[in-house]
């Protein structure tokens, strides 16, 4: 590695544009930050050697250099923005109705465009590997670009000397020469102190500096972003983040998913309360709505912990942990988990009560029996001596090729084939019974079965959550905001004073709000006989000054 020794004696690393100590431009490096041919110095990173520009030898260095580039970072961000925008054109797969097939849904709903959208996998943009890759690359770019700029800038700001090179002074945007021997330098220093500048002095050379910490704003917000990204990554680790869903029927006890088989819950009751339609206050609103307005969704549950060794499928030994209700926004909390009320289904069949009567006379009654639809018995004895055997049971029946079949295990549309044995008989009468169907199999049955009553139950849907990532994400967000504020509301101002044989030179630099800097200078030179410096930028071209100002703002952001 070559080093650059400045005429002031300071040894700078290769790639330095302006000497870290005195600010003298390194002639052969002027191309790096576009200083060539410009009247003013480009003060980006204070002309320090960015690490990426020092070596380019090994593959590691090449990869490093690639990611340290702001251009690459901005390109990645733009690509991600475009991808995110495309991902919102059509709904993502998770937002289409759960019972439709994605492969046909997009074609049916959105035509050819939908078909292409689906086949390109854009219906899963935000969970796709390439979207994750983009986010991760942005993360890498942020880390490397920050490291690449943070340390050099830190070094430069630490090593800067009050004594600056003449070229450095002259080529500052704010610069002025005063020829006089009646200058009040002490008043100048006092004024600076009054305006909260910190002063360092070297043989009559003065450096006054204010709000240096604002320079670190971008790096602080990068740290925030990185913490934020780490928080999001933690969501992939079940130890930190669980998001599951469970349906529980009233009276049922089920394992709570995501708890490694450790916890079970029983649904004692699901309650749906609606606003009273007779209430004067709500009457109109409810009528306008056209349907009852829910007031409360609630699951009364018991949480159990498994006490024996977890073997999937094995009947667990349970110990009651707590009894609680999950309502909207009031989850049941146990251990690290929370159960949120999320959904419900009302009125699923639970029990049906039938009676046996004469085929021709519905008023006769040979006895009733109640069938538990999730666990029916195979045989029911009636008081009259009749026996009813369930020959077949279809929880959700449909006719297929003229024969009944069940299409699911849930009793949504139950149907039965009953064999009725009259007292003392060994030959049964067979009938088929479903909702809206009551078929006499042989046609000459003596008895008939009729539905007397039924019971329904509700099903509750709960979200199981465990989230240890939220505080990391919040911390990242907070640090990000601190960084933004730090960089936005303060700016780094520096004023240099250089004694000359016949007077002084004064120069100033800030990263933004040049007007305020000039006003600061105006105030501190009051009564000192130092002439007000001029803004060489505005002198050069008055009209373009606004856009130049913006450009400086952009440069600041890149730092």
């Amino acid at each position, binding site marked *: 590695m070559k*080093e650059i020794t400045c005429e002031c004696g300071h040894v700078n690393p290769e790639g330095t544009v302006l000497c870290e100590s005195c600010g003298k431009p390194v002639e052969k490096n002027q191309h790096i930050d576009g200083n060539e041919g410009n009247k003013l110095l480009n003060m980006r990173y204070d002309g320090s050697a960015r690490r990426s520009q020092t070596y380019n030898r090994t593959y590691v260095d090449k990869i490093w250099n690639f990611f340290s580039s702001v251009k690459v970072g901005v390109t990645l961000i733009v690509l991600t923005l475009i991808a995110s925008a495309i991902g919102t054109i059509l709904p993502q797969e998770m937002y289409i109705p759960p019972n439709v097939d994605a492969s046909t849904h997009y074609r049916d709903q959105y035509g050819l465009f939908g078909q292409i959208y689906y086949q390109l996998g854009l219906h899963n943009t935000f969970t796709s*590997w390439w979207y994750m*890759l983009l986010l*991760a690359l942005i993360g890498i770019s942020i880390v490397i670009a920050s490291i690449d700029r943070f340390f050099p800038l830190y070094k430069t700001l630490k090593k800067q000397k009050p004594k600056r090179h003449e070229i450095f002074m002259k080529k500052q945007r704010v610069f002025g020469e005063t020829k006089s021997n009646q200058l009040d330098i002490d008043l100048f220093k006092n004024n600076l102190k009054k305006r909260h500048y910190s002063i360092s002095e070297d043989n009559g050379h003065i450096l006054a500096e204010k709000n240096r910490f604002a320079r670190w704003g971008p790096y602080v917000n990068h740290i925030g972003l990185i913490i934020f990204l780490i928080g999001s990554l933690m969501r992939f680790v079940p130890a930190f983040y669980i998001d599951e869903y469970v349906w529980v029927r009233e009276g049922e006890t089920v*394992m709570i998913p995501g708890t490694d088989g450790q916890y079970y819950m029983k649904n004692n009751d699901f309650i749906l309360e609606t606003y009273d339609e007779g209430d004067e206050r709500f009457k109109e609103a409810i009528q306008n709505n056209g349907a009852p307005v829910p007031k409360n969704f609630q699951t009364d549950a018991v949480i159990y912990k498994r006490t024996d060794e977890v073997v999937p*499928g094995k009947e667990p030994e349970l110990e009651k942990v707590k009894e609680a209700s999950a309502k909207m926004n009031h989850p049941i909390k146990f251990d690290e988990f929370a159960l949120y009320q999320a959904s419900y289904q009302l009125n699923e069949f639970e029990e049906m009560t039938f009676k046996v009567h004469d085929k021709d006379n519905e008023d006769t009654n040979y006895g009733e029996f109640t069938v538990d639809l999730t666990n029916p018995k195979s045989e029911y004895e009636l008081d009259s001596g009749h026996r009813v055997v369930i020959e077949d049971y279809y929880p959700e029946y449909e006719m297929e090729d003229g024969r009944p079949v069940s299409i699911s295990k849930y009793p949504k549309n139950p149907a039965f084939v009953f064999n009725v044995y009259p007292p003392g008989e060994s030959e049964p009468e067979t009938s088929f019974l479903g909702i809206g169907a009551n078929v006499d199999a042989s046609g000459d049955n003596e008895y008939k079965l009729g539905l007397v009553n039924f019971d329904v139950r509700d099903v509750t849907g709960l979200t199981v959550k465990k989230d240890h990532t939220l505080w990391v994400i919040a911390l990242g967000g907070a640090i990000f905001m601190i960084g933004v504020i730090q960089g936005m509301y303060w700016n780094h101002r520096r004023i240099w004073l250089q004694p000359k044989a016949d007077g002084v030179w004064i120069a100033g630099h800030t990263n933004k709000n040049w007007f305020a800097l000039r006003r600061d200078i105006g105030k501190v030179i009051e009564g000192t006989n130092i002439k007000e410096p001029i803004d060489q930028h505005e002198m050069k071209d008055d009209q373009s000054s606004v856009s130049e100002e913006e450009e400086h703002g952009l440069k600041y952001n890149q730092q």
Partner: protein
Amino acid sequence: MKESTLKKKRKRLIFRTSLLAVMVGLLVFAIVSTLKDDKAVIAKGEQAPNFQLEKFGSEGETIELKDLEGKGVMLNFWATYCGPCKDEMPYMEKLYPKYKEKGVEILAVNLDTTELVVKRFIDRYDLTFPVLQDKGGQVMDLYNIGPIPTTLFINADGEIVEQVTGPLTLSKLEGYLQQITPEE
């Protein structure tokens, strides 16, 4: 070149390499996690996770997978409301006695919730191999079973040799059973 510069350079290379390695590691982790979420299946070559289920019609008798070590195990996930599942039952029944002798156990894990329905089914098809009751669907979840029928063929070492989604034909079934038959 000075000694100190060389040292600095080496230090820098180590720093950059390790930082890049850490970040690439995180990146790979993120992408693998995304992909795994998409299609979580128990893969071929993996060890079959243990479970214990009650046998239908046995009044509480249970079967635990790890007790079957040394035997080949065919694990068939099915339900009475699934048409294709019914079609392959006779094939399983046909080959069961022959392969049982050779040290292969057929376990049919049923996903219904109503015992009566399954009992009637077993009677009708005269099934003699053990039908297990996975009421809560825990074992189905454990094995990440999506569509049924899905059949897993596990060898004597408890390793998953093959996973088949969809119905099996008689010849295919026999082929897979031969694969998991323990050697003499």
